[in-house]
């Protein structure tokens, strides 16, 4: 693959990963947020595929396919089921309002740079320089987790963290050993299933997936 095209496609994939993380903070509609997550999964698969094609790494190409299937299709579909029955499927009142969240996302992107300096110093090749994007997606996921009050947006936040870390893994090491990758993907899938079951129970019991309804346990 042409060197510059490789760089550009890779950079674009990573950019879209961060961008879709930003979109989850940007949009109110939960459906739109889940769609952004699906886009992120596809972009992640694109990054893995590009790396695999460039490095002639058959294993990574297979992983790319798996990522596309799991993170681009299955996981978003699983979460969509929760939303479909929810009447007020909007993130109406996050703890931090949307413009402030977006500015925070900007700050987090820079923070990701600072945090990954030691890592980028070690991997001086083209993919290695993109590691801050993975970190940024991860940090934005944390932010979403901490400030969003709907069960679904918390699940999405968790998955953003996970996708960000997966991106770092792809860029830094061209993927962890296959057995770990498979285990990690399976775990992720199961966690999504578990969270979905919990969210469904929550709706049945509380009539809402608003996490403010859960405030019984405290000291």
């Amino acid at each position, binding site marked *: 693959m042409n060197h510059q095209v490789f760089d550009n496609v890779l950079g674009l994939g990573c950019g879209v990963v961060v961008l879709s993380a930003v979109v989850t903070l940007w949009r109110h509609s939960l459906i739109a947020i889940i769609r952004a997550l699906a886009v992120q999964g596809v972009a992640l698969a694109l990054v893995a595929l590009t790396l695999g094609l460039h490095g002639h790494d058959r294993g990574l190409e297979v992983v790319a396919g798996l990522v596309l299937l799991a993170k681009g299709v299955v996981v978003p579909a699983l979460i969509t089921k929760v939303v479909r029955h929810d009447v007020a499927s909007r993130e109406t009142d996050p703890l931090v309002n949307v413009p402030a969240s977006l500015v925070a996302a900007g700050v987090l992107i820079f923070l990701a740079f600072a*945090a990954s300096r*030691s*890592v980028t*110093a*070690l*991997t001086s090749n083209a993919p290695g320089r993109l590691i801050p994007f993975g970190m940024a997606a*991860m940090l934005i996921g*944390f932010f979403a*987790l901490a400030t969003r009050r709907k*069960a679904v947006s*918390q699940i999405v936040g*968790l998955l953003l*963290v*996970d996708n960000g*870390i997966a991106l*770092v*893994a792809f860029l*830094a*090491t061209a993927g*962890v*050993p296959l*057995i*770990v990758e498979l*285990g*990690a993907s*399976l*775990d992720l899938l*199961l*966690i999504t299933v*578990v*969270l979905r079951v*919990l969210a469904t*129970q*929550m709706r049945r*019991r*509380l009539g809402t997936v608003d*996490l403010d309804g*859960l*405030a*019984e*346990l405290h*000291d």
Partner: protein
Amino acid sequence: MLWIILFVPVLCAATCAIVTWRKAVGWFGVASASIITSMGIVLAVRVVHGRAAVGYHGVLRADALSAFMVIVIGVIALLATLQGVRYLEAEIAAQRCTTRHASLYAVLIQGFLATMLLAVLAAGLGVMWVAIEATTIVTTFLVGHRNTRGSLEASWKYIVICSVGIALAFLGTVLVYLTALHAPRHGTGALDWTSLVAGSHHLDPGVMRLAFALIVLGFGTKVGLAPMHSWLPDAHSQAPAPVSALMSGVLLTVAFYAILRFKVIADGALGPEFARTLLVVVGLLSLVVAASLLLGQRDYKRMLAYSSVEHMGLIALGAAAGSTLAIAAVLLHILGHGIAKGVLFLASGEILLAEGTSEIKNVSALLSRRPVLGGIFAFGLVALLGFPPFSLFVSELTMLRAEFRVGLGWAAGLSLVCMAVIFGAVMSHGREMLFGPKGTDDPAVTPALVAVPLIGGLAACAFIGVSVWPLGALLHAAAHVVSP
């Protein structure tokens, strides 16, 4: 041999899933736990002299430390499954739980054991991570097994916070892998623990620093170390008693086992100072958090949960000291705390069943109204607070001495202050529950099925406290694995 240990709970889970629920199914779990314990002992005898056992194409590996953890898991699983039989019976009798749910419980408990065993028997750090992550998935449903509003909230918090933590640990693992790939002469199995330890001097210190900080924060979440402890009191207080016993008694320390494994690599790459500072900070922070929240505690299950935070803090401090003696004491503490906390959670489950409340102020005069149960609870608290002859006394004392010896005297002093506060708090809560005006009723009888295992557990805890005999060599060998 190693895969057989893993196979036992899996087989048992399959059986529980196939067979329709009857009382005997509960006893399958007990059988599985006893087989695990005895196989752990056999394994320990084989590896105690330094030769690690390898299995299943190098995916599994057991040294003395793994064998010790298998024994810990087995022993506490034995206590918990024995009590589990009673828990399920009571829940079914009270119609809070269908037989299908009971089967699910039995299956999940075995799955829980299998994932923990995989975590301690994994040769690679990646597989270990996968296994620890899997424990979260399995236990979420166990936490929510009582299916109340509170348990739903607890499981949600539990899985979200722990998944985030474990994701951080994954990032740490990836970074360790990265440094290994960039180190000279790396092998193909770059996540294999032994090769990582052997080549740890060549790992990049900058990345390793970040990686180990993420590991401590990430696995620390599952250990219940502050500042990521907030799920722990909720989950441990809402879960059924046998699950709380297993989670508090072993799951926390299995996660700590992961930190110990990484600490050796970090020490090799960075020198002991970095890991020491981190562990001292999180350890002291956990102690302070536990002390401050135990003071005004109103719920006795939450009290036990915060006491787990305290003990994990103590273990972190002990690991910070890092000498072979300190690590041996840490491991002894892992066992002693596991047994004592397991007994206490199981006893508290029985108290909850009998009294119908988990509020401290609504329970009183246990010693006179339920002499056996109250006695077990009282001796459990005594063990937990580190009185002789129980083994926690020996291990705490040894850890403190080791901390003084490496110049962590100030930290040891601070931890003593926190322990004194906790001592006062737990004593006063305990007094409120145990003593008080005796009612007119006759003392209630505690079933032997409950009493005998718990008394046995306390006796074992006292026995290893007095004579380290059957464990001495194993402790030494296990500590040697993760200390210079």
